[in-house]
């Protein structure tokens, strides 16, 4: 029997008696990395802290408008001596005005409940109507019952019919006649289109000197105001005498009077052979004879009187309401036109956004309207044809409150005295 090779001693040596004095590979690395990474993190934080840059704490991108605050959390989030997770309204109102929605509202949400920041570069406003319907679906107001619909659950559920303004205008206008087939124009028969008169404000409008390079003109959301020069003059010239090729100015009667006196005075100076006027070879029947001018002054007075009779009684009254002046030859008063541009004061509309829709599809009553006092704004049913949640699926044009409405009542806008916000 040979001796054993594996002795107990040898076996005992296999075990490192000092294993507890020295870290093994994984724990060693774990400890090492814990120290290094924590150190790096602390250095990183310290670095940003040293650079006074808070962007590392940001919950997401700021909107462009607030981009200049990037990293300076305290611009908005400071509270007392520290930094708060939420932003107090006072911080927003330091730069912005946020007029009250209604003085009768029972609760007012904080700015940030609707204007959610750190959600991306573009939008600061919440686009959902849920914030609106959280009150308006069961509306309670201070000081009695609400003066608006109390149960608006959505655009298609509970939204009342539109309340258009009454027309305060003093212009006589007949849409039906102007839109009829074979309308007689100065140079023959014409067919007018809506767009011949109703043009978006931005198109063809003079550039606004205060406008920016990208948008030098007024918005195209609404139609440009109707003006005599822009819409009426080409078919309704203010002719006043067959001898004259010029037309009278579209101004108040006093200005027209002065224009006529000047024109006829010049004319009679150039045509002295017209004086003194002799009775024309008109047929003799018992009728009061027409007055004859002996002097240039009389001639001017007679011609001005004729032209004014023609203008006041034929031309001006076609569109305007005139109150005759008191006394012979007194100038009439013309009622101000009072043309209204906006009819739904509670909501916004953008014609440009609806450019793909034919005018008549919404303003269907226009072609038959005979009175200027007809307000040709469509009702809610017309909007719901496209702006609906049912039946159209992906073809729905959307039904969010904020597509038409604004939360803040900007008629109550105040000027904000800008305070320094730490830029």
């Amino acid at each position, binding site marked *: 029997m040979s001796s054993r090779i594996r002795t107990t001693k040898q076996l005992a040596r296999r075990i490192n008696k000092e294993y507890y004095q020295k870290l093994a590979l994984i724990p060693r690395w774990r400890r090492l990395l814990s120290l290094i990474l924590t150190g790096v993190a602390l250095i990183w934080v310290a670095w940003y802290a040293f650079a006074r840059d808070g962007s590392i704490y940001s919950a997401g991108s700021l909107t462009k408008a607030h981009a200049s605050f990037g990293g300076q959390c305290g611009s908005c989030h400071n509270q007392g001596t520290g930094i708060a997770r939420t932003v107090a309204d006072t911080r927003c109102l330091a730069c912005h005005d946020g007029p009250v929605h209604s003085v009768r509202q029972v609760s007012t949400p904080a700015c940030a409940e609707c204007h959610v920041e750190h959600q991306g570069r573009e939008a600061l406003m919440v686009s959902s109507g849920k914030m609106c319907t959280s009150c308006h679906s069961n509306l309670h107001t201070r000081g009695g019952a609400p003066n608006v619909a109390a149960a608006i659950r959505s655009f298609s559920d509970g939204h009342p019919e539109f309340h258009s303004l009454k027309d305060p205008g003093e212009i006589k206008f007949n849409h039906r*006649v102007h839109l*009829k*087939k*074979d*309308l*007689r*124009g*100065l140079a023959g*028969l014409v067919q007018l289109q809506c767009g011949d008169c109703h043009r978006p404000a931005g198109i063809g409008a003079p550039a606004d000197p205060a406008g920016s390079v990208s948008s030098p003109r007024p918005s195209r959301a609404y139609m440009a105001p109707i003006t005599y020069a822009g819409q009426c003059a080409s*078919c*309704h*010239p203010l*002719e*006043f*005498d*067959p001898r004259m090729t010029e037309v009278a100015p579209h101004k108040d009667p006093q200005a027209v009077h002065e224009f006529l006196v000047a024109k006829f005075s010049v004319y009679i100076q150039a045509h002295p052979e017209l004086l003194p006027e002799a009775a024309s070879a*008109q*047929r*003799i*029947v*018992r*009728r*009061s004879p*027409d007055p004859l001018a002996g002097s240039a002054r009389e001639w001017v007075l007679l011609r001005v009187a*004729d032209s004014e*009779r*023609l203008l006041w*009684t*034929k*031309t001006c*009254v*076609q569109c305007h309401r005139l109150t005759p002046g008191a006394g012979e030859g007194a100038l009439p008063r013309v009622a101000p036109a009072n043309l209204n541009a906006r009819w739904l004061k509670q909501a916004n509309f953008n014609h440009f956004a609806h450019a793909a829709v034919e005018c008549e599809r919404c303003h269907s009553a226009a072609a038959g309207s*005979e009175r200027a006092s007809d307000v040709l704004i469509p009702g809610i049913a017309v909007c719901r044809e496209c702006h609906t949640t049912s039946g159209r699926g992906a073809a729905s044009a959307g039904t969010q409150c904020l597509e038409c409405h604004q939360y803040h009542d900007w008629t109550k806008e105040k000027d904000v005295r800008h305070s320094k916000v730490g830029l």
Partner: protein
Amino acid sequence: MRRHSAYLIVLASLLVSTPVVSADSAPGNYTGPGSCGSTSCHGGIRPRSDNAVLQNEFTTWTLQDKHPRATAVLSNDVGKRMGAILGIDPSQSSKCLVCHSLNVSQDRQARTFEQGEGVSCESCHGPASNWLGPHTTRGWQYEKGLELGMYDTRNLIGRAEVCLSCHLGDDTRSVDHEMIAAGHPDLYFELDSFTAAMPPHWKEPDKDPWIDVRALAVGQGVQLRENLRRISREAKQFWPEYSELDCFACHHNLVAAKDSWRQARGYPGRRPGNPPWNSSRYVVFRVILGQLDRDSAARLDASLKRVDELVSDVRADPAKISQAAALAATTADEIAHRMPGIQVDASVGWRLIKAIAANSDSIAGAGERSAEQAAMVLDSVFLASNRRARVGNAEQIGSAISALFQLVENPSAYNPNSFAQKMRSIGAMVQ
């Protein structure tokens, strides 16, 4: 005989109660004068030469015509005084407004409009609501408008009827002796002269070179018929209606017997002291008719003889006057309708002038209004004839006609002898 006269009364009342132009029977409603005056429509400042329609009608009406001022005169001094005398407010009374405005009830107004704009488009052209829109369209025919309520003013008879509905009166419009006493001018008319004085705002669509002479003859015929219808109406209400009688038989300055031309001429055909009929719508027309249509002239004379006698007799039975006038109106109506188609030749104008001059005594003797009618007719016929074939002594004739007008300028100073003499001299000037 009784059956016969009963038949006549029925016939007469039918005629009297069916005026040819009745605002209330025309279809459609009234849109008011402003509807026509747009510059592109009828309100241009000067005529458009490229169009059959002048398109400056509204401007002519506003600037040269007296019709737009018809309402305003109701409030002038004479109008106010008339109102005070008659106990009415002329600017509000329908008695005045029926002729002095486009006086239509609220339910006949297609839209609200001012009625104070005088005698306006629809007064003569009819209610426009049915044809205003379509009448500007491509392919529009004049005749379509007539079906839709437009009055047929291209038809000379229709035109004369429209004018005479106010310038003589109809069953809803009248100027009686009471109104004349209060200050209203008595009514007289001659289609061609009044058209020229208006002045016309149209180009005559008929290319007939003698359209003015034809119009004159039509005007004479229709005004006689309307006069007879008026007498027939009035005699049923109250007789004598003095406005039918010669004004100046009574309204003249009395002079010493030795200077009285009336007594010198005598009172042939009527009882002295009876005021004679104002036959001005007959005495000139019968002469015109004698030249244009001899048979008709004889028939007219036959049926007018009785009217003349009865109307010039204050003791006549009003029922008989009404009946005779209505019967004569049927003759006048039939003759008036022959006038638009009457044969006219190049010499007709001069023949008419000679014939009227040849009847100087009877026309001048029929009174001042007859003399005035003759002056207007001579003027119209002379102008129409001289336009076609100028005569060398046109100036001489023209000034002689002007002298005729001067002789009737002051009706009280009217002298039939000097008027007849002047008329005869005009006859002598015409070859």
